Each structure stands twice: as structure tokens, then as C-alpha cells.
């Protein structure tokens, strides 16, 4: 298991939207490789593909509001050895383009990159229609697909650059709102390699996206109660890092999964698939419990849906009792 020491003060973190990291990553990927191209879906500024568009107007194709066509056009570009990034709100990108992603992109194993913006309920006021809560499930079940949910803006940039450098379809989930920065430039990032951001012996929190931060805050709080909590940043949902998950479960004997996504089929389910087969331990799951989102400010929604560090800490207390 790779251990990464925290270099930031989690009580007072800098907050930056992960979409900024995506935008910078896409721009840098375009600077590094002229085969990188991007498609526009009428929300180019919102999903932060505008940095790329402005730098490389000839390699940016505006395609309007037509998600199915986006995926097909990207497939055609990939067949010509381009590296196309399709960026859209995750709920529409993954949902409306699903059969195209399945049959054209994944079955053909084409080098198409999917940037799924506005992941999770933290999108806020726009409400349920625009809050992507199912993409991890419906993307990770596709053969040849890689699924990454980075924890902060710096990691999102790294993931975007890594996506351009690997071959094959990949879905990167990122968000709209400002979230704590918990990694730095030196934090190692490799697709498929989870890492431990806090060591512990009583329980392991396995989280992805901005929920890693909530896990770190919970762990610090639990320390006061004498509970030693490990926190794993499980940024790659597929291919999942079985070795790290099994090691975490063996070392602690109890697991809490944490994600801003439906618990059905999401990151937690992926972890359970590993644990149930290789290292069954008591597990509690934090996520959206089979319901749609609602309008509201992000902070209120995260509380209302039980996605805060307090909820994680409570789940840890529950799971420890079951050991």
C-alpha cells in the first residue's frame, strides 16, 4: 500500500473546484500533444473546456446540444488517431450517450476521453435533473472502460493528463463547486493505484472524489475518541486497486465506503465486490440512498443527504461495533 503523507492543513484547506483542474489538464494535454482535440456541448465555459478552445480553436469542434452525436464524432476522431475529449455534464454525457459509449466506443475500444462535469448533488440549486449520481455505476460496468474520480483540483489535472497519455476509453468525474485541496504537485498519481492518506488500525475509510476530505476530517475527529482510522483515496473505480483495498481491510478489519453517488453500483459497490470475494469484513456505506437529488445550496444538500464528515464518523462507530 502506498502511503502519502498529508501536506495540507485539513482544518483550513484552500478550496478550488475540480473543474478548474480539468480545464488546466485539458489545456496542458493539448500543449503536449497536437493530436488532442476537444468537443463542445454548448456549456464550454461551465465545464472548463474553454481554456482549450481558446488556445486551440482549430482543434475544438462545437457540436451543440446533441450528446449522442458527440460520442459518435469522438469515435470517428479517435479512429483517425486523434485523442478526443468529450466534455459535458456527467448526467447527460453518461446517460444520454450510454449506448454510443457502450457499442461504438467501448466495444471498439476507441481512445475516447469523457470528462463528466457537475458530478454529485453538490451541483446544488439546479436540482435533481442536473446532479449526476449514477455515472460511476453505468460507466464502470462497460468492458474496456476506465473510471476515475479524483479528490481535488490538483488530482483532477493529473487525471486529465494521465487520460490523454493512456490508450482507451476513460471517464473522469469532476465537480462544479469549490472543494478542499488535499494533495499537492508532488503527490503521486497513477490510474489504478489507490493510496493511503492517513494510517490507522481500527477501521479503513475508502473514499473517492471530494469525499476523501470528509473522510480525513472524520478520521481526525475519531482520533479524539481513541479510534485509529485509515483513509484511502480510491480515485480509480475501475480498474479497482484490489491489493490496496484488501490490505486496508486486513489491517483494520472494518471498512466504510464514502462517495457522492448512489450507493447502488458506485465506488462502494466496487469495493464490496472485492471484499466479498477476497476479504469479507463488516462494511458501512455512505452515499446517496436510492433517491434523487433536490435543489438547495451545496452545503445544505450535503448535510441533508448525509454526506458530511459527521455522517462518516457515525458510520465508523457503527462498523466498529460490528467487528
Amino acid at each position: 500500500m502506498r502511503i502519502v503523507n498529508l501536506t495540507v492543513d485539513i482544518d483550513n484547506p484552500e478550496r478550488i473546484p475540480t473543474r478548474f483542474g480539468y480545464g488546466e489538464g485539458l489545456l496542458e494535454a493539448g500543449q503536449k500533444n497536437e493530436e488532442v482535440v476537444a468537443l463542445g456541448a454548448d456549456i464550454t465555459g461551465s465545464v472548463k473546456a474553454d481554456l482549450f478552445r481558446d488556445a486551440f480553436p482549430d482543434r475544438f469542434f462545437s457540436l451543440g446540444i446533441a450528446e449522442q452525436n458527440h460520442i459518435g464524432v469522438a469515435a470517428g476522431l479517435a479512429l483517425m488517431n486523434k485523442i478526443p475529449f468529450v466534455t459535458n455534464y456527467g448526467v447527460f454525457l453518461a446517460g444520454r450517450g450510454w449506448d454510443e459509449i457502450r457499442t461504438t466506443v467501448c466495444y471498439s475500444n476507441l481512445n475516447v476521453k469523457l470528462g463528466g462535469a457537475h458530478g454529485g448533488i453538490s451541483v446544488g440549486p439546479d436540482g435533481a435533473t442536473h446532479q449526476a449520481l449514477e455515472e460511476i455505476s453505468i460507466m464502470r460496468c462497460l468492458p474496456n472502460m476506465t473510471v476515475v474520480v479524483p479528490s481535488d483540483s490538483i488530482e483532477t489535472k493529473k487525471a486529465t493528463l494521465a487520460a490523454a497519455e493512456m490508450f482507451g476509453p476513460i471517464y473522469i468525474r469532476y465537480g462544479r463547486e469549490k472543494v478542499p485541496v488535499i494533495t499537492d504537485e508532488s503527490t503521486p498519481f497513477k490510474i489504478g493505484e489507490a493510496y493511503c492518506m492517513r494510517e490507522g488500525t481500527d477501521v479503513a475509510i475508502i473514499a473517492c472524489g471530494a469525499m476523501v476530505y470528509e473522510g480525513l476530517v472524520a478520521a481526525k475527529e475519531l482520533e479524539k475518541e481513541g479510534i485509529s482510522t485509515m483513509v484511502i483515496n480510491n480515485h480509480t473505480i475501475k480498474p479497482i486497486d484490489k491489493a490496496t483495498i484488501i490490505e486496508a481491510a486486513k489491517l483494520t478489519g472494518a471498512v466504510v465506503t464514502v462517495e457522492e453517488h448512489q450507493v447502488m453500483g458506485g465506488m462502494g459497490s466496487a469495493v464490496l465486490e472485492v471484499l466479498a470475494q477476497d476479504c469479507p469484513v463488516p462494511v458501512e456505506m455512505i452515499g446517496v440512498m436510492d433517491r434523487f437529488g433536490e435543489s438547495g445550496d451545496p452545503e445544505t444538500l450535503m448535510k441533508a443527504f448525509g454526506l458530511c464528515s459527521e455522517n462518516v464518523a457515525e458510520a465508523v462507530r457503527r462498523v466498529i461495533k460490528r467487528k
Partner: protein
Amino acid sequence: MAHQLNENELKQKARHYRRDILKMLYEAGSGHPGGSLSSIDILTVLYSNVLRHNPENPCWEDRDRFILSKGHICPALYTILSDFGYFAREELGQLRQYGSMLQGHPCMHHTPGLEVSSGSLGQGLSIAVGVALAARLNGTDIRTYCLMGDGEVQEGQVWEAAMSAGHYKLDNLCAIVDKNGLQIDGNVEDVMNIDPLTDKFEAFNWNVIEIDGHDVVEIGNAFLQASQFSGKPTMIIADTVKGKGVSFMENAPGWHGVAPNKEQLDAALAELEEEK
């Protein structure tokens, strides 16, 4: 490209391919004869006289690209690819069998000469648009072709793709609608009318050419016109007969996705011999 085939040679080729298609489907025990037979003349002209391709090097960078959007008629394409030497003729007998190079719907990783996997309708034109955009970006003279069915254009994605091809004025793109007038449930006009198709594509900023999709000379001329047309993509609307060449399959919706039995195969082959 090999030498251009004349009208008579093209007709002979197409008849040969028709026989192969029927034999393949009989061996497989399933598959789609109707659309394979309605589109085979178009594909014969395309592969013999139009498409820049090299069977000895299927991945040749400068080849023209053909995207088969109506994936279910792949037996028609398989027989042509085999004839051009992309793979051995014996493979045709393995259509739809476990472990076969020739899947029931096209898989690019199984079959040499296929540009992309397809089978879920309505997706090929989008792919062709992406290829054409990349070809333009690269500054190459590669042309992109895409074959669709008429039932297939009921898919909304076709119109998203048509809009984008018109928007980007992709004159390096030529699509063909095999307008055989039938789909599984019956006549296209009854199931879901798509007409006036020419007006629709013209409204989407396409150059549209209507032809008899079984007249090899008209087909060849249409492809030539398309390659010379500047500033718009070209849509060839090919008026065809589903099941063309086999009397009892012609214009019969029941022959969309059913393989002939031995008796039917023999009767069909006899008809295709007699036409010589």
C-alpha cells in the same frame, strides 16, 4: 486501386456476391438477407471502383474510410472483403459461429478491413463525421463513406449527425441511404414515415442525389458527382428493393432477418444463375 470494373463486370460481381450472401446465411442459420441484397450493388461499386483501399494493408493510413452503419447487413460486406482478399474465403462459412472472425454484427477487432464495430442503429453517420473532421484537420484527401438503412434514419442521432455534417460543410463525406422501403414491422411509410427524405437532408445543408440503387452505372456516377461537389456533404438516396435478386425475397418484410432453408437456398441460387 485495381482497374475499374465495367458495367458487365460489376453486375457479374454483384451476382456472385448475392450467391455468397445466401450461402453464408444458410450455413449460419440466421442473419439478414433482405438488406444485404438491397445494398450489395452499392457496395460492389463502392469497393470495386470508388474506395481507395489496400487489402494487403488494411490499416493503410491514406485509405478512404467506409463506415457500415446498418451493421446487420454485414454479410454483404464480408463477402466483398473476402473477395478482395482481406481474409480467406473459407471464413465465410463460419459466419455467426462461436470463435468466428465474422460476428453477427460487425466487430472491428475480429474482422480485417472493418473500420469500426456497429450494429446499434443510427451511430455510423456520427462516426463518419468525426472521421471527416479529422481528415480535414490533417489536410488529407481521404474520403469518408457511410451506408445507412431507411428505417435507420428514424433514429434521432442520424439527424444530429446530419446537422453537424452540414454545419461543418463536410464535402469529404458521402453517405448513402439504402432506401428499400421496408423494415421489420412492415413498410417504412407505415411504421414511421421518413419522407420527404431528399427535402429533409437538403434542409440540413446536404447535397442530395437520388438514384436507382441497383443500376451500377447510376451508382458510380453518383459517387463521382459526390467527390466533385464542393461545400456540402453528399447524401445518395438509393431507391432499392429489399431482397433484390431473389424473387420470393423481393419486397417481403419477412425476409429482413431470416435465413433461407436448403430448398429456398437452391431456388434462390437457381434464379441467380439464370440471370447470367
